């Protein structure tokens, strides 16, 4: 099987890769680039644990072929910090106690980041609607909603 050449910008770094044509973005990130923050929990797009940003928009990386994103920018949880400082969302997730087992956390934060990218001041209802894209099995979501609210306030 012939490989496919792609150039992607991952967390502000231009990367050239030769990937399998049937390789998912999640595989590329985890297996080739050792970016294991995005998690594989269902592999079928049902849970959101593998969410990353594709040109600023949250996507399920388990449903995307890497050849599809040639030329695109990808942001993963590992790329969220700026100048060594945590993103307000990361801070708020810690401070509000929105993290338990942590397996959904990176996907949840990336979904929230996507929301704040397109809506700087989301209402509580908008936050709930947006993070209803992701499954969390530990927290009951309450502290996650509070953390996103807190982060959007901080960023305002």
């Amino acid at each position: 099987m012939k490989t496919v050449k792609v150039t992607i910008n991952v967390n502000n770094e231009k990367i050239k890769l030769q990937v399998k044509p049937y390789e998912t973005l999640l595989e590329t990130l985890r297996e080739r680039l050792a970016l294991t923050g995005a998690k594989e929990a269902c592999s079928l797009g049902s849970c959101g644990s593998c969410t990353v940003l594709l040109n600023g928009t949250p996507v399920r990386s388990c449903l995307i072929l890497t050849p599809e994103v040639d030329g695109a920018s990808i942001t993963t949880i590992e790329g969220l910090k700026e100048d060594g400082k945590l993103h307000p969302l990361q801070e708020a997730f810690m401070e509000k106690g929105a993290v338990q087992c942590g397996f959904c956390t990176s996907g949840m934060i990336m979904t929230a980041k996507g929301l704040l990218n397109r809506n700087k001041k989301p209402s509580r209802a908008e936050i709930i609607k947006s993070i209803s894209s992701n499954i969390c099995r530990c927290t009951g979501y309450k502290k996650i909603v509070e953390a996103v609210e807190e982060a959007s306030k901080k960023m305002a």
Partner: protein
Amino acid sequence: MILPKFEYKKARTIEEALEIYSQYNGEAFYLAGGTDLVPLLKHRLFNPKVVIDIKGIEELKTITKKGGNLLVGPNATLYELKGTPEIQEKLPCLFQSLDATSCETLQMRGTIGGNIMQNTRCLQYNKSLEWRTARGFCYKMGGKTCNVVLNAKACYSNYCGDNAPSLMTVDAKARIVGPTGEKTIKVEKLFSGDGKEPFTVKPGEILKGIIIPLKETKGAYEKLTVRGSIDYPLVGVAVTIKDGSAKVGVTGIGPCPRVYELKEVNEKEINNIADKAYEDAKPVLNAVLTPAYRKKMVGVLIKRVFKRIEKGGSR
């Protein structure tokens, strides 16, 4: 879960896509948002030789207004469409079904074309190859009989698209282009009614556009699910009222969405249609709620949607 082996080709024009399709003798799939296709491939329900990425085809993406119609490229995402002012203002039923589709993240990736053309579903079909091999292949997979309705030589899988019924109620049409040329058909004509091969679209043909008449309508969409997001409809009812008459679309039960027409909107007509849709619905035990219940909900939801429209239509 890894994907089966296939080649990846990117098409820049419709002609190129059709050309690649024929090169591979039809052992090919068109890829747009991938939210429906990729899980099917991961489950080995299909094993194409090539996946043809048609996202880069510019003319399939655009949303334009022309002569009282909204011309929608099939690769417009559900989220883009939901944000289109004309739909928000004039087509409340379609707006609500778009809003009710899956979850926000998948709305941002999933396309309207892919959503309309999504494969039918069944609890005994959307499973891994190992699961299905242990169970024995069903009729839809090339086996002898259905695994839900034992001994039936038919497929009872459910069409679970949220938006086709809404489109049907607003008289939307689909433009199909294929190796033999182009045609425009009503959205309802896309569906074969056969669970095994749910679409009338021929191998290689591409959904090129959706034509949505832009007239003032009233309407609403009601969706029965267990959860408030991510889920497919267990029953979905779309209603659009226009110039005194109404159309009702029903989805989530059986291999195709159905559409009904009310010449006049009054209680008697609504009850008639609710009864008729109830009679037509023939659910089987292939989704997470019981068939008897889902059948019952068809009538209940139809009446409920009309009531909601009467009260202003909002959810």
